[in-house]
């Protein structure tokens, strides 16, 4: 996973620009996914990463509703209601695909065979807890889908999210206040402002966009102090 990590622990700061757009963030994550790996992209923003994984990268996409080597979204006559992704969006099949039933699909996920999954999140704790399934609001209808299985099952669980809520509150926090999806399962957090490795010492900044590491660390609790 770490071919793009600099040899030193210095944080790479991109100060000549603002935070990443969703699409730019998707491209950053795509860059870090090793060629030839088997990957599950969660519903929502992570789906966008597929646009940045050209065929020559050899990345095989898994969808938990029973398919490997899923292709791009179906358009026009390609649309087949028997062929959808986990978000129930019509998709296509690539050569070398395979179909299987739900127990086999989740055995694949839970058995540790996926190299990478990328999930959205409400919050991630600096020691890697993930909260992405329930706001905790008693009026909300809970719905977990496959999130808890992916969280415990993939070899690397990456999170893609904005670093702050609309009101400016950090979503990378010392301890999640939202109901948890999985404990200590996240290995890396990708956000519009910065990427972080979850290490035994806490969340460590890797790369920033539009802010210095020091400025970001000051806005967050529980971040390993940057040495760059």
């Amino acid at each position: 996973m770490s071919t793009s990590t600099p040899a030193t622990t210095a944080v790479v700061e991109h100060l000549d620009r603002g935070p990443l757009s969703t699409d730019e963030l998707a491209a950053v994550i795509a860059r870090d996914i090793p060629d030839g790996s088997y990957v599950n992209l969660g519903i929502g923003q992570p789906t966008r990463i597929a646009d940045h994984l050209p065929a020559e990268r050899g990345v095989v996409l898994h969808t938990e509703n029973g398919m490997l080597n899923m292709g791009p979204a179906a358009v026009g006559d390609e649309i087949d209601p028997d062929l959808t992704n986990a978000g129930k969006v019509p998709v296509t099949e690539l050569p070398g695909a395979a179909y299987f039933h739900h127990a086999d699909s989740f055995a694949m996920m839970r058995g540790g065979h996926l190299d990478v999954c990328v999930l959205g999140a409400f919050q991630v704790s600096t020691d890697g807890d993930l909260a992405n399934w329930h706001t905790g609001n008693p009026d909300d209808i809970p719905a977990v889908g496959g999130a808890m299985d992916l969280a415990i099952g993939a070899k690397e669980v990456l999170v893609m999210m904005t670093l702050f809520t609309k009101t400016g509150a950090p979503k990378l926090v010392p301890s999640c206040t939202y109901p948890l999806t999985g404990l200590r399962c996240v290995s890396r957090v990708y956000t519009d402002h910065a990427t972080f490795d979850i290490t035994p010492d806490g969340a460590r900044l890797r790369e920033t966009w539009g802010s210095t590491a020091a400025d970001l660390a000051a806005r967050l609790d529980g971040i390993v102090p940057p040495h760059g």
Partner: protein
Amino acid sequence: MSRAQVLETCDEAVAGIEDGSTVLVGGFGFAGMPFDLLDALIRQGAKDLTVVSNNAGNGEVGLAALLKAGRVRKVVCSFPRQSDSYVFDGLYRAGKIELEVVPQGNLAERMRAAGAGIGAFFCPTGAGTTLAEGKETRVIDGRTHVLEYPIKGDYALVSAHRSDPMGNLVYRKTARNFGPVMATAATTTIVQVGEVVAVGEIDPETVVTPSIYIDRIVRVESRHYTVQGAR
């Protein structure tokens, strides 16, 4: 189970489903949903049902129609909340239906366990979360596992692509999803198929659900449906 029956109508296929039954309903959204069997079940009238399915219905067709008809006491599913799950949402908020949310992998594996003679199993999914509250846990190889029990159905309603008269089934693309697992987990498994071919026409290497799991087969007209809804 002994030899399957090939029936003429969906009404015959769902005959005898008792009030209070636990019914496993195939499909992931609309893909693989047994629309015609669900319509027949509404006509049949069984009530107070517990439905186990991945979702809690979309729009007003299929499972949502069964819910709307007031026949379901409880839904066991992984993902009830969808953009068009307003029938379920309304019943739930009105306190007219119970909900048990189960992680999707546990939903599948617990039904597999019911079909495979596994009394219970330990799995890390959900450990430390509210969905594992009150459940037995155990640390195995340094990792917390949760003990999960089988989910067994009285009936399974499944949709498949093709069958032979014995009940060997093949599915189509991601419409396969929960069908093969549910077929193993119910006392009586009822399948609607688009086509019944002669015995011997399905290559034995490609059978997904072997005939032993199927009790009743009914052929239905192929129905045009979109991801937005059936028909």
